């Protein structure tokens, strides 16, 4: 722009407005990029989580009054029933709970002479949520590893101990105690040592290795009966097909904790609000830039008109105004991009464990979004400025 024209068109007032607009545009674009990125991260995190998630469901038949007095194992699952369940499309795997059919009594070794009757159950190892080191039993071994349900310890610590003034017991403490276990049946008996190696959130029982239970049932008991409880691995806990199947068959179930859908909805809603806020800021900035340029043109419309009358082309004058807003908007867009890039890297290191496999908004996509918004703004701006100045002619 020539010197005289520059001094004629220079106006600090609209430059200040443009500066404010640039800040709003920077803020809006940054929020938009970061929230879209956050949305993408959460979305793919939940998607991955869902993809990799396997739910475990423990089912049993209902127990009614007649069964209570009837024969043993009336509520057990037959081979056919298990086959039928396994064939269902929503069932990924099925495991049976094996019950002990021998007599078990135990006392705390070297501590108290209190005997108590026990029961053992076993599930195939692939259904355990935790397999502690030493979780193995071979014939001839006199050590029985045990996993108990964590809820039971909680039940004792937060109810029984408080109610009766008994000491609370930590998991570590309990894991150190060795139990003396007497297995007996069929006129035979044998002493074993036992210890709790882990606590399970999934299996609500006193779990021992399946190999031990099958061996002991055979040697001391009446063999392994048909299971009364089954553990199912399913893909989608909320599958309506699964629920109607369980209902039809009259099976009761107990499920393991899943990702809270409430949390997910809240996170999605918050991110949506953030995205909308970003969008609002961008629109706000759009409006300020447009209004600023329109005001700037209106403020000196007489001068622009005279310039046109002297022979200046309206399109050339429009270019001068457009170039000015182009500089402000481009700098804002560039800074928003850099800020986003920096924030994304900080976010990556902060939430690495959380979103390790979750896809962030690839920087290329964010760049495209940035370019799209900025181009849209600039194109519209160019159109409006050209039209406004053309009207003066």
């Amino acid at each position: 722009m020539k010197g005289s024209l520059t001094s004629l068109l220079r106006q600090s007032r609209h430059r200040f407005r443009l500066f404010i607009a640039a800040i709003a545009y920077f803020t809006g674009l940054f929020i938009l990029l970061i929230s879209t990125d956050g949305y993408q991260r959460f979305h793919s995190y939940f998607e991955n989580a869902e993809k990799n998630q396997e739910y475990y469901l423990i089912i049993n038949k209902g127990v009614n009054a007649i069964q209570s007095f009837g024969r043993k194992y009336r509520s057990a699952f037959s081979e056919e029933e298990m086959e039928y369940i396994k064939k269902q499309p929503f069932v990924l795997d099925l495991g049976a709970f094996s019950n002990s059919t021998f007599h078990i009594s135990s006392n705390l070794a070297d501590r108290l002479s209190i005997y108590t009757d026990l029961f053992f159950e076993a599930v195939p190892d692939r259904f355990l949520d935790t397999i502690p080191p030493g979780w193995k039993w071979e014939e001839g071994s006199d050590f029985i590893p045990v996993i108990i349900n964590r809820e039971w310890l909680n039940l004792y610590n937060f109810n029984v101990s408080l109610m009766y003034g008994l000491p609370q017991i930590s998991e570590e403490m309990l894991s150190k105690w060795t139990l003396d276990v007497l297995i007996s049946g069929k006129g035979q008996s044998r002493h074993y040592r036992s210890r709790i190696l882990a606590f399970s959130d999934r299996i609500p029982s006193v779990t021992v290795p399946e190999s031990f239970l099958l061996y002991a049932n055979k040697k001391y008991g009446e063999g392994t009966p048909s299971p009364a409880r089954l553990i199912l691995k399913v893909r989608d806990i909320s599958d309506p097909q699964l629920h109607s199947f369980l209902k039809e068959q009259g099976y009761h179930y107990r499920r393991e904790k899943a990702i809270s859908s409430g949390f997910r909805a809240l996170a999605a809603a918050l991110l949506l609000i953030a995205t909308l806020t970003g969008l609002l800021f961008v629109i706000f900035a759009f409006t300020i830039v447009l209004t600023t340029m329109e005001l700037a043109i209106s403020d000196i419309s007489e001068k622009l008109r005279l310039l046109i009358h002297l022979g200046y082309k309206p399109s050339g004058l429009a270019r001068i105004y457009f170039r000015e807003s182009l500089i402000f908007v481009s700098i804002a867009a560039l800074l928003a991009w850099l800020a986003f890039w920096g924030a994304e890297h900080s976010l990556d290191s902060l939430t690495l464990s959380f979103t390790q496999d979750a896809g962030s908004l690839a920087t290329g996509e964010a760049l495209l979004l940035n370019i799209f918004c900025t181009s849209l703004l600039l194109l519209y701006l160019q159109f409006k400025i050209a039209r406004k100045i053309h009207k003066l002619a």
Partner: protein
Amino acid sequence: MDCDSLTLHTVVPFHLKDRDLQSSEVWYQKLHFERGHHYHISAPSGSGKTTLARILYGLNTDYAGSYFIGERHAKSLDIGEWSQLRQKEFAIIFQNLRLFNELSARQNIEIKNDLQRTCSEEKIEEMLQKLGTAHTAERESRLLSEGEKQRVAIVRALCQPFSWLILDEPFSHLDEKTAQTAARLIAKEAADRNAGVISLQLGDDNFFPYSKKWKL
């Protein structure tokens, strides 16, 4: 674009249509202007001198009849073509001078000269000196007297190539002597370009060797 002649064919501004214009030698008449000649159109105030100047310069299209620039109908020209014409073919001295008040006298001239780079700084200085206003060149236009402004407007109009120079009461704020000097400068610049000069004045005058005189 051919700009060697201008033709007005039964032109009348809409706002003058209701007036009795029978005695007018311009409105509703056929006028032909040839490049290289000087034309004088006189009329009392309010007769439409400025309107005619604006029609000839393409700023006013509210008229009936036809105005041709060469073979082209003036109303068919778009704003881009008019910009080109105002840079290279048509120069004007507005009656109300129309300077940018916040710019200095020199900047007002430069802003026009920048379009085609017609005059050197020395040439501009020389013209200002001829008109006796070189000493006000750096002063803001709003601080100039009407006479000084008029001289700046004259120099500005001459800082471009042109085939036609339209003068709308160009010497209204000048004394006789300065007006004569300005007229000589204009005549010389017009002659150098073989340009036509259309001078719209309040009354009769002999500033230029007119080929034709009309009463508006």
